[in-house]
């Protein structure tokens, strides 16, 4: 299974959740599969999906899923100690770990070599870290949503991409639509 296959299995579970989607193909794939006002698409700024997700989770009550990538977590490693030390039990960080920089041509990342992101997250102090297979990802995310504990999930999948259109929506429109939906949920 490649990332887009994993995302497809996730749609029934995350469609009604607040989702912060990582830059590039993860945002574009989610947008193509299931565009929702509850989705925040990152059009730029590699590495910050987990930070945006944590800030959002700390600021309000609804559950938040940040869908990140191994390359993006590697570029913002400082996020893991911040997550570990600022518990938000409504926050799930899902790292789709395909061992490559998918949006730029599948160049290999160190997460696909000797570096274990799950072990790094644990070493940073994160309490509920689960590494799972691509096939088990949907069930693992569902279990995390059912529990009320901040959870880091590292989903190990294969490298590879499908063709997806770019997102035409303007950034302030994405932001405004997302905030309106958050307000509605927390009203």
């Amino acid at each position: 299974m490649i990332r887009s296959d994993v995302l497809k299995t996730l749609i029934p579970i995350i469609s009604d959740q607040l989702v912060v989607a990582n830059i590039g193909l993860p945002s574009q794939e989610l947008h193509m599969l299931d565009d929702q006002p509850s989705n925040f698409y990152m059009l730029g700024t590699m590495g910050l999906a987990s930070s945006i997700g944590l800030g959002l989770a700390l600021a309000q009550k609804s559950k938040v899923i940040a869908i990140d990538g191994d390359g993006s977590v590697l570029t913002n490693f400082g996020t893991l100690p911040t997550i570990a030390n600022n518990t938000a039990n409504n926050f799930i960080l899902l790292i789709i770990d395909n061992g490559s920089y998918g949006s730029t041509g599948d160049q290999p990342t160190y997460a696909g070599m000797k570096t274990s992101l799950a072990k790094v997250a644990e070493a940073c102090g994160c309490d509920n870290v689960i590494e799972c297979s691509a096939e088990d990802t949907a069930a693992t995310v569902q279990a995390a949503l059912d529990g009320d504990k901040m959870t880091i999930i590292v989903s190990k999948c294969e490298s590879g991409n499908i063709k997806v259109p770019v997102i035409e929506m303007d950034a302030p429109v994405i932001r405004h639509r997302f905030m309106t939906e958050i307000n509605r949920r927390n009203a």
Partner: protein
Amino acid sequence: MSIDKQILHDFIKNEIEFVTTVPCKQLAGVIAELEASKDIFHIPSNKEDEGMGLCAGAYMGGKRSAIIMQNTAIGVTINTLVTLIQYYNIPLPMLISYRGEIGEPVACQVEMAVHTKALLDQLNIPTYHFHNRQDAEELDVILNHCFMAKKPVAILTDANFWQGA
């Protein structure tokens, strides 16, 4: 009122509830006040671009946010300022320790100081420079302006400002 308390007072008056910091010696007093505040959630970040991500998330979650950092961070955060904060129209007050100005003991800090205003100017970021203690009297309206405009705003605070504070 100490300058540190006054800054916190103006933050709270402008309904800022979420502040991230990357420390600087000059900012130690403000950071200590933040940590002690019951009105503001203080979340230290490891790098300023990470902090801006946290602030963007908190803002979308309904909490006005701000970042406190050194001017060296301008070099770190240009991409984040442009592709996240500006691109999505997110208001972000940046209280910045303006290292490398007159009174600076560390020569290397001058290297970034000479670029600071030029970079902010290039990024079209409204910039205010606090050099004397009374300059801080404008902080309240600067914060108000920032949230009205939904833009990042830089408040540079130099060594003379902190010594006179």
